[in-house]
């Protein structure tokens, strides 16, 4: 192979994206505009994340892609193949072995290390967008640190549902300054945003890149009398028995049977290999 430049994008484009990434890292949580390129996949499939990954990858990297925690769904498979073809980098499904992880909607259960980079795919980078449709106004609100409106959304949640019902894309404040949309990760993952790895966020259609450097303070917004809670389904995993991981609910039939299973497939697999068993596995072997 090598009809493609390394990692598909040309070197000038990658430099441009790297400059945006560096600026994002220097101003944590600030949305840096960049000249997003047309990628050979539709918007909403992770064009922002793919461009950030392309600018971040080196030939020595090991690459992992997850979609909703899973390594084997369409989005994850196609992006992994894309970089196998265009960059020829090593790919893996194991979180431990990866140096660059591109993710959609989840943070892996395994604790990430300082030598790893996690790249998020972001559909709408502006946390204030659904409350204030004018971009000129939201930019001004960010620059003047006027974030009262963000709490109006949480207020509405409580007044309608009795609790903060925002379950994903839960707004956070980075380093006591910028309010940031952590991409649509479940709020269960919010406490993990203070991590050892570098976190990069790419929004292709909206042409924004932002970042959270390692060991940066990230606080989920809340009220004094309704504090933030990282919630998950109150079950153990039916395959590996894990009680600390984020679960997907799977409907089994039309008789009300369902199973809960780790959304992080790599975590679930490694636990089963280590001999842990969940409810369904026990029933089938019994």
């Amino acid at each position, binding site marked *: 192979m090598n009809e493609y430049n390394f990692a598909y994008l040309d070197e000038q484009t990658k430099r441009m994206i790297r400059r945006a990434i560096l600026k994002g890292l220097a101003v944590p949580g600030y949305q840096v505009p960049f000249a997003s390129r047309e990628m050979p996949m539709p918007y909403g499939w992770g064009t922002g994340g793919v461009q950030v990954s392309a600018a971040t990858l080196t030939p020595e990297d090991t690459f992992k892609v997850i979609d909703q925690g899973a390594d084997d769904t369409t989005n994850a498979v196609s992006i992994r193949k894309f970089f196998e073809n265009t960059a020829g980098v090593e790919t893996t499904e194991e979180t431990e072995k990866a140096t660059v992880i591109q993710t959609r909607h989840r943070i892996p259960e395994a604790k990430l290390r300082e030598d790893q980079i996690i790249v998020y795919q972001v559909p709408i980078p502006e946390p204030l967008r659904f409350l204030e449709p004018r971009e000129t106004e939201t930019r001004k609100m960010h620059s003047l640190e006027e974030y009262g409106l963000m709490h109006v959304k949480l207020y509405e949640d409580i007044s309608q549902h009795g609790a903060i019902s925002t379950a994903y894309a839960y707004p956070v404040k980075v380093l006591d300054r910028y309010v940031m949309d952590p991409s649509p990760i479940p709020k269960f993952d919010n406490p993990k945003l203070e991590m050892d790895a570098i976190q990069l966020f790419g929004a292709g259609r909206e042409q924004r890149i932002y970042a959270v450097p390692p060991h940066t303070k990230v606080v989920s917004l809340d*009220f004094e009398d309704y504090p933030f809670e990282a919630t998950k389904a109150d079950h153990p995993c039916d395959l590996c028995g894990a009680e600390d991981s984020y679960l997907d609910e799977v409907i089994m039939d039309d008789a009300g049977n369902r199973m809960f299973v780790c959304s992080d497939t790599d975590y679930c697999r490694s636990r089963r290999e280590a001999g842990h068993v969940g409810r369904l596995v026990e029933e089938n072997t019994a």
Partner: protein
Amino acid sequence: MTPLLQVKGIEKRYGARIGCADVSFDLFPGEVMGIVGESGSGKSTLLNCMAGHLEPDAGQVIFDTRADGPVDTVTMSEPVRRMLGRTDWAFVHQHARDGLRMSVSAGGNIGERLMAVGDRHYGDIRDRAIDWLGRVEIEESRVDDRPSAFSGGMQQRLQIARNLVTGPRLVFMDEPTGGLDVSVQARLLDLLRGLVREMGLSAIIVTHDLAVVRLLADRLMVMKSGHVVEAGLTDQVLDDPQHAYTQLLVSSVLQV
């Protein structure tokens, strides 16, 4: 006594056209000033210049801040001015839709200003929102309804509650009763008059309705073509108009 607001030589031009020119007055604490004039006479331009929505081409708007005393709001930095706009100032728009968030419940609308100044206790915010709904005569049960489900008069009252919840000292009103039918207007005026007296508010009311200023305003300014043509005590100006335009204005009011 220090005036709450001193306006000195405000001028705003739109290209070669004059929006308003050479307007100066003092507003003292607890005083209500009415500005009347025909459409296009520059009253809204003047109001927007004073409230910081428009940048005047010349002149000063000196506000007596709680912390630092009299400060020129035209030259102060934008964050400080916007903070003032959320705390000590209030702005009531003619159309409630401009001043409300239509997709947010009544309680959220009132609570927004509280949250914007750092209130982070849901229970307190809600209690104060309900208290203010009561003060503007909206039932407590409507606290979680959206303004789109409210009548025009209720929307206007909600807008007033949303503005007054942070206890401002100066309220700018742009035709607060425009577009409402007369009985709703009367009720709203009654409410406004009560609130202004009770809270000791200063207010600047822009309107073309002379009945509104007769009822609410202590003093009156009459504008024509961007200039103030007559100013004085409300009753004095309305009962004994001196300028030809004021005479025309007063005599144009329809009698029932």
